[in-house]
């Protein structure tokens, strides 16, 4: 069965050297998680500044492409920090994630969020100067998706 193969794969990941090392340490998981949160601050801030501009709520007299352009590099930095800390966190508790609904919601939302970000929100934002209803909808959608990613991510820890 597919799900059995997936489970075995997750089990292997959990037994990996990195997963093992994090589980055996008293401080590694919290420290990696703390840097995951710093990544969240960086990504979240970049997303918010861009999306609030799309919604016309922040720096609304400045060109949209300027605001999005100024946040994109920092956004990518936040993503790199989040992914490179998120993977070891996952490896340390892959089986728990396998059974966690929050984890699967987060991964789905993350995938949607990344596709939306790089194929819709940024290309459109970077070619727009003034706002309109469509761009507002894009900003609202973007904020909503990333809120689900962050919120369900936090919820993995509670499940």
């Amino acid at each position, binding site marked *: 069965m597919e799900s059995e193969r997936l489970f075995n794969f997750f089990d292997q990941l959990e037994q990996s050297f990195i997963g093992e090392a994090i589980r055996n340490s008293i401080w590694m998981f919290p420290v990696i998680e703390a840097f995951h949160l710093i990544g969240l*601050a960086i990504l979240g801030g970049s997303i918010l500044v861009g999306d609030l501009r799309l919604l016309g709520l922040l720096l609304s007299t400045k060109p949209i492409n300027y605001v999005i352009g100024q946040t994109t590099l920092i956004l990518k930095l936040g993503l790199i920090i989040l992914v490179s800390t998120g993977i070891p966190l996952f490896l340390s508790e892959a089986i728990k994630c396998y059974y966690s609904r929050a984890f699967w919601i987060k991964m789905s939302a993350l995938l949607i969020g990344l596709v939306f970000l790089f194929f819709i929100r940024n290309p459109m934002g970077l070619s727009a100067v003034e706002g309109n209803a469509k761009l507002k909808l894009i900003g609202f959608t973007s904020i909503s998706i990333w809120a689900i990613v962050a919120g369900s991510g936090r919820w993995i820890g509670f499940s």
Partner: protein
Amino acid sequence: MLEIAIWLSETKWSIALLESLYMYPWIESAHVLSICFFIGILLFVDLRLMGVAFTKLPISEMNKKVLPWSLFGFGLMTLTGFLLFYAIPVRSYQNIFFRFKVILILFAGLNAFLFHRQMKREGRNWDEGKSIPKSVHLKAAASLVIWSGVIISGRMIAYNWFDCDRQPQPEWVNWAAGCIVDLNQMGGLDGI
């Protein structure tokens, strides 16, 4: 201070909050997500001051239009933070990471105060294209470093491996955390 924490822990709402199945996680999630509003947006104000991002925007405009969003996040973060402390007052008060975090926040406040005082005095010159003084770059960088430290120590609070109940600990740890090692009944006060 410990007496105040004990008194808080015995109030009705503190116990209700701690024992609630959903309220505590929801408040904690709101606390974490407000990082994005507060520190994430402050990041861009600081990067502007450091001349890294939004260099075409006058600093005064950044402070007038972007900083308020950050302060909104700060308000949400403070409110939820107080509630989280209120749910677990004694354990938090005797948590070395919590204490370190509070000290860092005081430093961040001092740094912000010094920055705004300086901006009041000489901020007009920064907008007129004259270069921003090194001391402003330094305060912006300090802001980012200190708030990162707040995030890190804040996350550690929940994992406190120096908990007063986990003895033996080095003497300096018990001193810094304010642990009363002999009185074991202290440990159970928060109910966890």
